[in-house]
């Protein structure tokens, strides 16, 4: 298990690994928002949690099709499937690698970018916490989407169409925690719901992803 994680992390960091792409995309989306919405800081701070969450979600979505496509093309996926490592483990590890290279950096960068959007002070902590809880779900749902569409040439768009509706619950609860945190309201329920969804996804979706991989490897 760790061998696959170590290899994927090394690949991501190596030249052309695409480690910084999601972060750069996130930065661009956040900087574009005031151009679209106008520089009025009052409106910006109102929509800051939502925009930051949506930016992080789209950045996650962007880097999903790399999860299996590279190993599919150079035959590594076949060899990993014949190795003692079960496909469920491989799917979970791929999701963890995606989270470490995309979800975690986004979670750390979001508060910094919050300054750009004039995020109210109490919001910083809750934004980071909600993203920390939400991005694992985004990664593992994305891994499931990637496993479904790995056989499809240029399946990136198809995968987004499949994965985005699956992101709806996490986005709603995550953005709600960030917004309520920013406005210092009670956040117990959305926080619990967000954590519950993430835990359920991380626990169950690798099995669905592995089933999809087995079908595609046939």
């Amino acid at each position, binding site marked *: 298990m760790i061998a696959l994680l170590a290899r994927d992390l090394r690949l991501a960091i190596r030249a052309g690994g695409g480690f910084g792409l999601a972060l750069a995309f996130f930065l661009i989306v956040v900087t574009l928002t005031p151009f679209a919405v106008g520089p009025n800081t009052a409106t910006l701070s109102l929509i800051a949690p939502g925009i930051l969450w949506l930016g992080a979600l789209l950045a996650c979505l962007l880097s999903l099709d790399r999860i299996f496509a590279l190993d599919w093309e150079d035959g590594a996926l076949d060899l990993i499937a014949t190795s003692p490592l079960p496909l469920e483990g491989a799917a979970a590890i791929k999701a963890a690698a995606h989270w470490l290279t995309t979800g975690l950096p986004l979670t750390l960068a979001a508060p910094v970018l919050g300054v750009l959007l004039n995020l109210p002070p109490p919001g910083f902590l809750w934004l980071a916490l909600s993203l920390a809880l939400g991005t694992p779900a985004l990664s593992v749902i994305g891994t499931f989407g990637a496993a479904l569409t790995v056989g499809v040439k240029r399946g990136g768009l198809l995968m987004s169409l499949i994965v985005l*509706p699956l992101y709806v619950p996490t986005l709603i609860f995550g953005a709600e925690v960030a917004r309520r945190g920013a406005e210092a309201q009670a956040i117990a329920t959305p926080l619990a719901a967000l954590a519950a969804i993430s835990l359920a996804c991380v626990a169950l979706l690798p099995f669905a992803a592995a089933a999809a991989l087995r079908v595609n490897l046939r």
Partner: protein
Amino acid sequence: MSLWEYANPTRFMRVTGAALPWLWALTALCLAVGLTWGFFFTPDDFRQGSTVKIIYLHVPSALMGINAWLMMLVTSLIWLIRRHHVSALAAKAAAPVGATFTLIALATGALWGQPMWGTWWEWDPRLTSFLVLFLFYLGYMALWAAIEDPDTAADLTSVLCLVGSVFAILSRYALVFWNQGLHQGASLSLDAEENVHDVFWYPLLVCIAGFVLLFVALVFLRTRTEIRARRIKALETRARMSAA
């Protein structure tokens, strides 16, 4: 002869071939009676005025939009467990029909709400969950279209349907939490006492029957088309194999 016998393509074709003409006739009858009865012969609601007539389209289509996805879920499970091709093809056939019903529910819901809520589209949780359901339908149909091998496509779409169903229900509750909601109370809940007044009730039942029959007829028709398409593909493969 167990129920599973119907999954054999030839028997399915024979049975549905016989049933379809009757089904179309019954559907036309129910729809005609239900809609005309509801449209022409029911009084206006004291609060909503004549817009209440939209109930005869909104409630049945909303009901069928959800039931179509449930039917797809069941057929996907049947395909995964018992590997019956007809079941997978029925799921593939039902998706566009379910999507159309969901679209009708969305359109009629928006039009019905417009006078009451004063805006064309109100982010009401129940109406919005139909929008999300519609996105699920699009993803499901796109996945079917994207994969050439029919068996692989059937497997992958079945897995997507299972996972999608869980997330559709999750989205449903997330949306209720997300916006308290302006939707009128359940006009058709099982505890009878708070249901719509009788005079609206009977035409509504007929309309629902009409929509259910329409759904079944369309799914039968489209499944037969899918089976014929698979038959053509099989004959072509055979011709190629015996030629090569």
